[in-house]
Every structure is written in structure tokens, then in C-alpha cells.
């Protein structure tokens, strides 16, 4: 098989997989929140309401496409695309499994093993804000503009702690390649803990997690859309599949962020203490590594949902205060400590 065909298959697979995660997540979000709130949630379409996302999708696709008269129509259409695309693209460098041998050919389970994958994630991750800002601006609605403004300020400020938290990881692993980072997390740490980034960087992990919540603009940082304040924030004026793209994009974003958390802090596809490749065949190992990765990712996806239905929302100024006055100093402290430890141990 030609290499480019394999790459194409991988790209399509990841694309579909992301979409699938997003679709299932809409169901999980609604059912899990219902369960936390003593309700039932959607349970009519299909078994356990599993077809509800499909029904929603059909609804969104068949709805009339409305572009408000006073909206800037090109930007208005561009907004959702700008939001959803980076979310998908960031997945390209995430290693979602080790490798699989098919037809005597070794295939690594990663779309592109670029040696600066890490920077790529950061760069693409911050692109998503353009979707929000453009959408908010183009809608020509005061609430949307406020949502867009909040998104800009929030995402720019939380980009800093996000990057600083990750920088400490780079110091630790000494590489920019995400795949390399996963390999370095095999074995044990201090003799009994899995050799995961989480145990070496507990503070860094918490800081990254908080910043990730802000990046994904999820509760408690869902200020750009804060439905009780700004109606629906930057996508107040949107309807139909354009709104659907914003909603899907959000979940794809969650999937990507979870994947990055797993890759960097939780050992990627590796199980703790067990080396799967030792007793599994090459095909089975590929699938198993993918499943392990997915299970870890699923936990963080659920955590996003779980936190959303537990905590209230920040206020805009408090959010900025938290970002600049708490997270960034803590990130710097973490960075300094890591640097010191790396210097002492190497």
C-alpha cells in the first residue's frame, strides 16, 4: 500500500472518530447531567436515547439557514468553520495508539509524527478563538460582540498559563514530539508509581487542566456563551448547522484537549506496570493501545461534563484575575521547580 493512502485512511479515521466523539458527547452531556440532577434526560430516540444526537443533527441540517439582515454575511458564514476546523486539525499530531502491523507493514497510530507536534498543538489550539470572535463580530448583536470580546480576552490570557504549564513538561522530557513524550512515560517512577507526567508534574497538571477548561470555554469558564448573561454569547444569532458546527466544535475541542492531557500527563496508550506489547500480537496490540488511550480520554471527557454540572460560573474580571494573578505565577513557580529538579538530576 502506498504511504499516502495509509495517511489518507488515518486522516479520515481521525476525522470520523472526532465527529463520533463529539456526537456521542452531546448525548453523554445530556444524559449524565440528567443523572446528576435526578432527571432522566433524552431517552426516546433509540435505546437509552442514543439516537438523540442523530435526531438533533437532522434537525440542525434541515433547519432554515438564516443570515440576519444586518450581519456581515461572509464573516458570519466563516465563523463556525473557523471555529470547528482548528479543533479537528489539532488532533493530527496526537498519538492515539502505538503501532499496528497490517499486511507486514508497520503503521504508527498517529497522523503525523512531527518533531514539533507540541508547538503545533499550541498554535492550532489558539486558532479556535478566531471562530468565536469572527462569529460574535459578524452577528451584529451586542450580546454576541460581548461574547466575542470575552472569548478574546479569556483565550489570550489562558494561552499563557497553558503554554507555561506545558513548557515545564518540555523541560522534563526534553522533546517537542508528543510520541517521544509517551515513550518516555513507560516504566515506573520512584519504584512504585507509573512513570506518568502526572506524578512528576502534579501542580503542572492541575494548572494545565484549569487552563484547558478555560481554553475549551467550559463551565466554570464558559463566559463567551454564558447563557444566563449573554443569552448565548457569540452564537446567539446562529441557527441551523452553523450553530451545530459551533456546538460540535466545542466537543471536538474537548476531545482534543483530553487527548493532549492523556498524552502528556497520563502516559498516552500505555497501561501502568504492564507492557502490552509483550503478550499481545501485533494487530491486537495496536487495537489495545488505541482502546487504552480512548478509555483515558473518555475519563477526561466525562470530567469536563461532571465539572460543568457542579460548579457555578466565574465573572469576567475574576476569571482574568485568576488567570493573571494566580495561574501564571504558579506556572512560573512550577517551571522554576522543574528546571531546578532537571538541572539537579541530569
Amino acid at each position, binding site marked *: 500500500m502506498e504511504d499516502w493512502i495509509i495517511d489518507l485512511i488515518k486522516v479520515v479515521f481521525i476525522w470520523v472518530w472526532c465527529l463520533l466523539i463529539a456526537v456521542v458527547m452531546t448525548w453523554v452531556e445530556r444524559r449524565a447531567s440528567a443523572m446528576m440532577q*435526578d432527571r432522566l434526560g433524552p431517552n426516546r430516540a433509540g435505546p437509552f436515547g442514543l439516537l438523540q444526537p442523530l435526531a438533533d443533527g437532522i434537525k440542525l441540517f434541515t433547519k432554515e439557514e438564516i443570515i440576519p439582515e444586518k450581519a456581515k454575511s461572509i464573516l458570519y458564514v466563516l465563523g463556525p468553520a473557523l471555529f470547528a476546523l482548528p479543533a479537528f486539525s489539532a488532533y493530527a499530531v496526537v498519538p492515539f495508539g502505538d503501532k499496528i502491523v497490517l499486511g507486514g507493514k508497520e503503521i504508527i497510530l498517529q497522523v503525523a509524527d512531527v518533531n514539533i507536534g507540541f508547538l503545533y498543538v499550541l498554535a492550532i489550539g489558539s486558532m479556535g478563538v478566531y471562530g468565536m470572535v469572527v462569529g460574535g463580530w459578524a452577528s451584529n448583536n451586542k450580546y454576541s460582540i460581548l461574547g466575542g470580546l470575552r472569548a478574546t480576552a479569556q483565550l489570550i490570557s489562558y494561552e499563557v498559563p497553558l503554554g507555561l504549564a506545558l513548557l515545564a513538561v518540555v523541560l522534563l522530557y526534553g522533546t517537542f514530539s508528543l510520541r517521544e513524550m509517551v515513550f518516555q512515560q513507560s516504566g515506573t517512577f520512584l519504584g512504585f508509581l507509573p512513570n506518568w507526567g502526572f506524578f512528576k508534574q502534579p501542580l503542572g497538571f492541575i494548572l494545565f487542566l484549569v487552563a484547558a477548561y478555560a481554553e475549551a470555554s467550559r463551565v466554570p469558564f464558559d463566559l463567551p456563551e*454564558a447563557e*444566563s448573561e449573554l443569552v448565548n454569547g457569540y452564537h446567539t444569532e446562529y441557527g441551523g448547522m452553523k450553530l451545530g458546527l459551533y456546538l460540535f466544535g466545542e466537543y471536538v475541542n474537548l476531545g482534543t484537549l483530553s487527548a493532549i492531557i492523556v498524552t502528556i500527563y497520563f502516559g498516552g496508550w500505555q497501561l501502568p506496570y504492564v507492557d502490552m506489547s509483550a503478550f499481545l500480537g501485533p494487530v491486537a496490540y495496536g487495537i489495545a493501545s488505541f482502546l487504552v488511550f480512548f478509555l483515558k480520554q473518555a475519563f477526561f471527557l466525562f470530567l469536563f461534563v461532571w465539572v460543568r454540572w457542579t*460548579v*457555578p460560573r466565574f465573572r469576567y*474580571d475574576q476569571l482574568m484575575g485568576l488567570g493573571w494573578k494566580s495561574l501564571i505565577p504558579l506556572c512560573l513557580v512550577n517551571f522554576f521547580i522543574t528546571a531546578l529538579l532537571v538541572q539537579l538530576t541530569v
Partner: protein
Amino acid sequence: MDYDPVCQIDRDPDDLVTINIGPTHPAMHGTLRVIAKTDGETIVSAEPEIGYLHRGVEKLGENFTYHQFIPLTDRMNYCSAIASNVAYEMAVEKLMGIKVPPKAQLVRTIMMELARIADHQVLVGILGVDLGALTPFFYLIIQREEIYDIFEWYNGARLTNTFGRIGGVNADLPDKFHEKWPTLRDTIRKANEETDALLTKNRIWLDRSVGVNAFSAEDALNWGFTGPCLRACGVKRDLRRDEPYMFYDQFDFKIPVGKHGDVFDRYMIRMEEMEESVKIIDQAYAMYQEMPEDAPLMAKVPKIIKPPEGECYHAIETPNGELGFWIRSDGSDKPYRIKIRPPCYMVYQAFGELVKGDMISDTIACLSSLNIIAGELDR
């Protein structure tokens, strides 16, 4: 005391953005409208506009007989219709000099306090929703449904109860209450504890509520605040204690008082008042059980109610504050004039003052914590 400098910056009025918050906005309960002039996210001035739910209740009252007016009071504060019903009935009874039998008073007390709990549950839940915490709302609203079950078994309606009649009540406590109350009081407390656990110590909640639109006691009194909003400012005024009616002077209950009059204090006062209401119901229920089975529930009232010529004002402590009815009778079977003093009205007029210098998010928190009920506000 130092002061917030935000409002003292001179701004070019052309730089301000006017945002219409409401009348159709997810956080505007009912149909309220706030015309807010903002500088970025900061509110420079906010002007509440009322009247979107005006139905002319006072004028309608002039064309209705005294009994026919009771269903209209249901539709004022729909979160606690029973309190409005009783307030009106007591005003007419005062005008006519009717003495309501003690058992009827106890039934009224119990139902009114249940309504108070239901009202506060809605308020705390909605406050949570508006600040982004949706889950406590459901824990509380499930308990409110149980309370509404009691109302339904009492006389057949859950929301617009049309509770009581002039001169007493038209039915005894339902069996549902007797069987439900011993467990309900615990589940109400449990829901409150869960809400407490999710919110009260959560730093995000504290950030959002502590110090947000704090109000001094002096200002609150000048603006005519009553009820929980006034008590949050540190003024210990509760008509149940200060101008006791029914058996409230015999019950043992605390009046929770806040300190700063901010959103957090208003929230805490409601949480504590629910607890006190449970205590009041327990005491009233104990007194009720000592009454004989066939103790009167209605005073002797003429078939057609024709109060003597004259006027009277009577106010009671409803969940929102002092709800007063001023009734002027010309001796006919219809009131000459009814004037209602809703607690929301006085509180809402200070809204612009309350949110000045705060952020847009705080307007929402402020509005929810004041418990503005459009039906009561606009009548």
C-alpha cells in the same frame, strides 16, 4: 468605609453602549427590562422598566366582589400564591372585623410557611442557575414539587391555589400533609444541605456573590426595602415578629439577619428562613393537633360580603417582604378601591442604584437575588 471608584470616572456618553437586557432574555424572570448603559462590561447606569406584565389587577378589583378578587391575588406572586391570598383575606377580615377561628389560622400558617419554603427554593435555585450552577436548582425544585403535591391535595391546584376564603379556610389540612410532612421536613432539609454543599463554601460562588451590589441599611430603608432584602442589609424587621398576626407571637423562631446586603447575604437569609419555616410549621402543626377535630374553620361571615364603609391597610410578611392591601369600601359588595403594596416594587426601583458600577454578570445575580416577580411587580 471606602467606596468603589468605578462610577466616578467621567465618561463620554457617546462611548457608552446601551444594552437592553430583557424583556426577552433568559435571565429576566417574567418580563422585565433593564436599559443598561455599559462601558465595556461595567454598568454605568441601569434603568429598570416595568409594566410588561401589567394586567390592571387593582382596577379589576373594583369590578369584582370581595370573593372574586381572591383568584387575582393568586396571579400576583405566583411562586407563593397562598401568601398573597392570605394577605388579601386578612385585609378584608380586618375591614369587616371578623375574627378568624384559631384552627383556620393554624391551617393558614402552615400553608403559608410551606409556600414560603417553596418560594425560597425557587429563588435559591434560580439564583444558582443564573450564576451558572444548574444542579442545585433541580435538587430544590424536586422538593418544591412535593410541597405542591400538598397544595394540590388541599384544594386541587398546584400553582394558583385560591387558598382560603374571607373568614377562614374552606377545607381542613389534607391527609397528604399528615402523611407527608414527617418525611418532607427532612427531605427539604436534605435538599438545602446539598445546595449548601454545592454553593455556600464554593469559592467561585463566594466570588460571585459576596460584596456584589452591597447595600447599606440606611439606603435600603430609604428605598423602602422590606423582607429578606432588607434583612440582608442588617435591619431586623420581620412583620411576623414586629406586628404579629395569627399565632406568630407564640412561635419560637429566629429572624436571620445579614450584614452587607449583598447577593450572598440575601441568599443565606433565604436558606436560613427555610429552616425557620420548617420549625414554624412543626410548632403550628403541634398546636393544630391539639385542636378538636370539629373545631371551626370558618368564622360567621354573611353570604354576600359587604364590609362597612371605611378603609383599612393590612400587610403581612410574604416570602418577598411586606405585601399590603389597602382596601376602601363604600358599603357595597365590591371594593371601591384596592391598592396593593407589593414588596418587589419598592425593591426593584432601587435596581439601578444597586447595580451601578457592577458588571453585566452582576446585574443578573442582583435581579435573581432580589426575587423580582413580574406578576407582583406590575400587578
